[in-house]
């Protein structure tokens, strides 16, 4: 069990919480986190395989009914309870601290393999300059670069090591700089660079012969697909995984916002910016695939490898080899992947770093290097091996489709039905948002989203249990797929048992630092102080409508 309240006096007061310099800094970081590899290599293929233009309908429905509501829930939890994921859930109720560690461990595992993909992309920036993959990019990736040619084994692949070390040095340097000087500055540089490079890539793609055929394939709707439940599940999955929700990122990021911040407004901008980039990626990728189809005198639907690793490291290199000036196009594409990956990786690692910093009362730099070193060693040991590609694929599949979805379902159900904190969080959102968060939000978070996610979870679990995953041996998917999920659960309870070295349960003297001068407040000064969750801002059983103006309470 965790330390008792009586032990609180011997624990350190947490240092003043770091903050973003303002709303723009937070917004860029949130967008940077949301725009990741999945926007570029997952969305276009998923949309094409699930109805083309018609996919826009379930996609927008999923964005409005699941993505944005859960994003608001993450924001509200982080901003209201101001801490890392374990601290936030512990402040909600002691017994649900494991949910915070579950989310932290998800972020930890994703960090470990995400860095490897960025390292590959970094290598491919260099390979693009000489088209090093030659005539057969698939063989180059599998045999020459990753050495995945001798079944399952854990022999070391030195070619991945160099870029992987570079990735970790960059990421740790950014995190050691802290929220304002590290995360925020990195996003202020990386995100505009990413957008400029990617727009350049899309413009070039649109001028290629065959681009129109690619856009036709991408946007022509197949309305019959809308009757297929699998298409709707695909839309909800895409939105859910793309927005970086329910595994601690947005919760941690919003905890660094000043008390006076527009949660609703920034949430909408972040969500639509993420989707806008996905549409841009769809246009760029399918214009490029149209060029490939034209060169090979075939059609888009006969091209293999239009998502994920296949699209990025097999299909695109092949296209770059066909293209006049392909070297420049390759550098643009792979640098975009590196930048999109880096802005997401630093957000993932910040979740882990913040949790351990608060739990163990360590300094930011000490935590960053401890956590970073563990992640770096694990990513080198497990993923720069001859089985790295299969391992990454398996861990990614189970972590996202089982781990993240389970985390979201438990979060919705616990907050709504067990702790009944949704009304208080709605009031908090309404207190700091420029848009009204009405009853619709509670209906979506409390009923529709968990119901839909439960369908997704059951569907995915049954398929994985019945068929396994891809062509991997059962022992392999059991050990590294289901084993990862088991490790999340066991680890979450084990970390909860470790006593906090900071006084996580006490009201912090620093919680009201961001209130600014008490000018013209609508409430007495003492109400400006952050109230601990045990003393809710307004009673949950208050009969008045949640968004009604209140004179006093």
């Amino acid at each position: 069990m965790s330390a008792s309240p009586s032990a609180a006096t011997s624990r350190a007061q947490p240092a003043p919480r770091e903050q973003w310099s303002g709303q723009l800094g937070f917004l860029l970081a949130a967008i940077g986190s949301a725009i990741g590899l999945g926007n570029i290599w997952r969305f276009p293929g998923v949309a094409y395989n699930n109805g083309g233009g018609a996919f826009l309908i379930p996609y927008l429905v999923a964005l409005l009914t699941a993505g944005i509501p859960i994003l608001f829930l993450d924001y509200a939890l982080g901003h209201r309870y101001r801490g890392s994921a374990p601290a936030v859930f512990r402040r909600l109720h002691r017994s649900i601290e494991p949910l915070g560690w579950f989310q932290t461990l998800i972020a930890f595992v994703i960090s470990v393999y995400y860095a490897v993909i960025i390292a590959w992309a970094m290598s491919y920036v260099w390979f693009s300059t000489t088209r090093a993959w030659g005539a057969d990019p698939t063989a180059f990736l599998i045999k020459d670069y990753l050495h995945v040619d001798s079944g399952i084994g854990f022999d070391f692949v030195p070619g991945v090591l160099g870029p992987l070390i570079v990735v970790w040095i960059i990421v740790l340097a950014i995190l050691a700089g802290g929220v304002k000087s590290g995360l925020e500055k990195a996003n202020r540089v990386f995100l505009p660079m990413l957008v400029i490079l990617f727009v350049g890539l899309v413009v070039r793609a649109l001028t290629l012969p065959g681009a129109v055929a690619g856009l036709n394939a991408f946007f022509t709707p197949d309305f019959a697909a809308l009757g297929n439940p699998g298409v709707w599940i695909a839309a909800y999955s895409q939105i859910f995984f793309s927005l970086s929700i329910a595994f601690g990122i947005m919760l941690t990021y919003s905890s660094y916002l000043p008390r006076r911040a527009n949660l609703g407004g920034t949430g909408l901008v972040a969500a639509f910016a993420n989707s806008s980039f996905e549409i841009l990626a769809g246009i760029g990728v399918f214009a490029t695939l149209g060029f490939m189809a034209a060169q090979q005198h075939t059609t888009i639907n006969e091209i293999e490898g239009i998502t994920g690793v296949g699209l990025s490291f097999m299909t695109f290199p092949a296209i770059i080899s066909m293209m006049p000036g392909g070297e420049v196009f390759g550098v643009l594409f792979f640098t975009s992947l590196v930048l999109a990956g880096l802005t997401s990786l630093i957000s993932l690692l910040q979740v882990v770093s913040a949790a351990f910093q608060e739990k163990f009362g360590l300094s930011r730099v000490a935590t960053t290097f401890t956590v970073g070193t563990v992640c770096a060693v694990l990513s080198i040991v497990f993923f720069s091996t001859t089985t790295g590609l299969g391992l990454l694929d398996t861990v990614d599949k189970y972590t996202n489709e089982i781990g993240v979805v389970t985390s979201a379902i438990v979060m919705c159900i616990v907050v709504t039905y067990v702790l009944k904190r949704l009304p208080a969080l709605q009031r908090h959102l309404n207190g700091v948002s420029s848009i009204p968060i009405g009853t619709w939000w509670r209906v979506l978070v409390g009923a529709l989203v968990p119901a839909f996610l439960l369908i997704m979870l059951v569907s995915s679990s049954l398929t994985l249990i019945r068929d396994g995953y891809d062509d991997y041996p059962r022992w392999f998917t059991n050990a590294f797929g289901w084993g990862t999920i088991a490790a999340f659960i066991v680890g979450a309870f084990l970390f909860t048992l470790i006593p906090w070295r900071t006084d996580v349960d006490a009201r912090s003297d620093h919680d009201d630092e961001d209130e600014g001068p008490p000018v013209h407040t609508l409430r007495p000064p003492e109400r400006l102080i952050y109230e601990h969750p045990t003393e809710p801002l307004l009673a949950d059983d208050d009969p008045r409508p949640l968004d009604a103006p209140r004179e006093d309470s």
Partner: protein
Amino acid sequence: MTPIAILFLVLSIGLVWGGLAVSTYALIRTSEEPDTAPTGPSAPAHGGPPPAPHGRT
């Protein structure tokens, strides 16, 4: 491009990028509003949730 593909291209851009433009405009507009509560005889004496930073209570 086929007319139906053009229609869905325009719809995608209009709805998603339009949503981004509108939400960004709304965010900028509310950020420009003074970060103070109303004063004078019509202002409530005290109470209520945390003051909305952008004019909404």
